């Protein structure tokens, strides 16, 4: 192990220890969190931030590493959350059987959904995933299959295990979310370093060349998407535990785009970058509204106050600026330009199609 690698592992270990002992700290951090760090409100914010980081990492696996721009990641997060709550509430199953069953069902949905969507490539794939997620979101908002409509569903009384129930146990939910990030990061970090992971990155750079070398591109893409979406469903399970239920806010276009935004913000093709993007995005969307109702903002004149009161305004502007001027996301500040995933394209811009500038030849 080289010295820099040892330093890196030590840094990661230290960070994990700090994150793990946060629930023991009784300190106020100004307006950043709703109360002292170890208050249930603050811990719930932190837990949601961790879940968002994990979701962003899972999308990075298929989007940043395999080049599959899914605009329907919310389908799997939402399905995981709803399936967990609905199945656990079934008295014959309970939480202990409901969770594994929900994850298994999500895996099936991930295989079927991606097998269909992958019949299209490039933007077509994005559109297909988006539309499928939207179908789920509509079904959930209308309350089909006992999903409760706009208010969503909550765990019935006594369904959650004691350690995860109630306000005083929010810190256990936080630790669960932290463990989720560690597991998801670990699985993804190992996967992208294996042979399969290298094939995925080959597909991202040029699907046609990878196919010519002799790899079954469709199968590799399906594997990447299925693993990614199944882990997203696991994030949905933890979301349901943290929130005590599932609601339509994690289903639908808005959430799907939010996850894409997290990954692009943090850095495509860099796992910790995606996690950073998820943390920033989720934290800002949760905390900016209360910041904007503070005195500093409400004293400003109207033309300034309107944009400042909208978290999406900040995030949208930041997103556009990053796409224009920093395509590698925030992570590229550290990793430098070498590892950004913007593809080098020919002057005619045929990169995504694999065949440079010859689409019209056959006609």
């Amino acid at each position: 192990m080289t010295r820099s690698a040892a330093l890196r592992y030590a840094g990661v270990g230290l960070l994990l220890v700090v994150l793990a002992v946060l629930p023991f700290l009784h300190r106020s951090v100004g307006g950043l969190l709703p109360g002292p760090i170890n208050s249930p409100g603050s811990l719930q914010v932190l837990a949601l931030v961790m879940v968002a980081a994990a979701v962003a990492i899972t999308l990075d696996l298929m989007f940043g590493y395999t080049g599959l721009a899914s605009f329907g990641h919310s389908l799997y997060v939402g399905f995981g959350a709803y399936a967990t709550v609905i199945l656990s509430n079934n008295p014959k199953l309970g939480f202990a059987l409901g969770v594994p069953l929900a994850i298994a069902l999500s895996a099936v949905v991930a295989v079927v959904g991606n097998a269909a969507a992958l019949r299209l490539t490039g933007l077509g794939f994005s559109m297909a995933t988006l539309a499928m997620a939207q179908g789920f979101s509509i079904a959930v908002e209308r309350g089909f299959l006992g999903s409760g409509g706009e208010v969503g569903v909550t765990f019935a009384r006594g369904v959650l295990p004691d350690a995860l129930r109630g306000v005083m146990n929010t810190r256990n939910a936080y630790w669960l979310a932290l463990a989720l990030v560690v597991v998801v990061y670990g699985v993804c970090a190992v996967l992208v370093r294996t042979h399969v992971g290298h094939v995925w990155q080959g597909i991202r750079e040029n699907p046609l060349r990878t196919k010519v070398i002799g790899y079954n591109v469709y199968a590799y893409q399906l594997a990447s998407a299925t693993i990614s979406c199944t882990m997203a469903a696991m994030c949905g399970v933890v979301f349901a535990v943290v929130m005590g239920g599932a609601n339509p806010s994690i289903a639908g276009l808005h959430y799907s785009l939010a996850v894409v935004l997290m990954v692009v913000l943090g850095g495509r093709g860099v796992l910790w970058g995606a996690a950073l993007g998820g943390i920033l995005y989720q934290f800002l969307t949760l905390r900016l509204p209360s910041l904007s109702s503070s005195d500093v903002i409400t004293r400003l004149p109207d033309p300034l106050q309107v944009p400042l009161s909208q978290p999406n305004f900040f995030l949208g502007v930041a997103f556009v600026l990053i796409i224009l001027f920093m395509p590698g996301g925030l992570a590229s500040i550290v990793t430098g330009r070498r590892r950004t995933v913007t593809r080098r394209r020919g002057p005619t811009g045929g990169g995504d199609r694999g065949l440079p500038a010859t689409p019209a030849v056959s006609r």
Partner: protein
Amino acid sequence: MSTFLLIAISGLGLGSLYFLLAAGLSIIFGLMRVLSFAHGAFLSISGFASWMVLRSFETPSTPRLLLALLVAVLTGGAIALVVEVLLIRPLKGKELEQLLATVGFGMVLVSLMAGTWGPDEHLIPRPQWLTSTTSIAGAPISNSRLLLIGMAAAVMVGIHLILSRTRYGLIIRAGVENSAMVSALGINVKRAFTMVFVAGGMLAGLGGGLAGTYYGGISPFLGDSMLIFSFIVLIIGGLGSINGALIAAVVLGVSQSMANYYVVNGIGDVLVVVLLVATLLVRPQGLLGQKERLI
């Protein structure tokens, strides 16, 4: 029978709205390979522009309505021009980045609208004749639907005439086939890109003005909810094909309304997605799409 006809024509009106958005998206995608997520926001802001023209009247006159539609069209075009010059052009050749930039711009625009006018629906007053009905074969059909269907038909005819009869149409059709070759022949493709994007924005603007008269109100989020169905119309019809978009818009609008009325309210929206998945499985390039286009 009259109920059936009523539902069918309502569905046709809905399909017309999808078509107005999808037609613009379809030409833009065909020529520039850009899929714009900002078009929903274009539609919403144009709806608000028409609301600004109409809001101070109890029952506005017909010329006032036409003025509102014109303002809506111009608003859509102007914003599309800004987006094309500032976001699309610098990212030329990077399809995904262009798409993501429009996502970000759409977010900014929607949040500005929600911040300025609030997230709730604003009622748009309509002339007397628009709120009354015409009897067709015994079915009382709202005139706003007929206006919408008529406008969509006029747009369809207009697009066909422009594409087949004018020099610009020729450039656009050639650019769809091979834009590198067209620019090699000394034709300014860049300008054609801008024009097509602005035209798409104007169609979204018209959609926004008409959606206001159709629903009788406008909210910052109306456009985005329409946009999703327009994307589905695009994929089912075949990306880049306007005729495909027309067929898909009609089929989707009518079957969605039928299912929502005759089965359960809300099931029609799910049915649309089922139709999409079925299309992807049977014919992934869409009804009239060309296979190599989709890659």
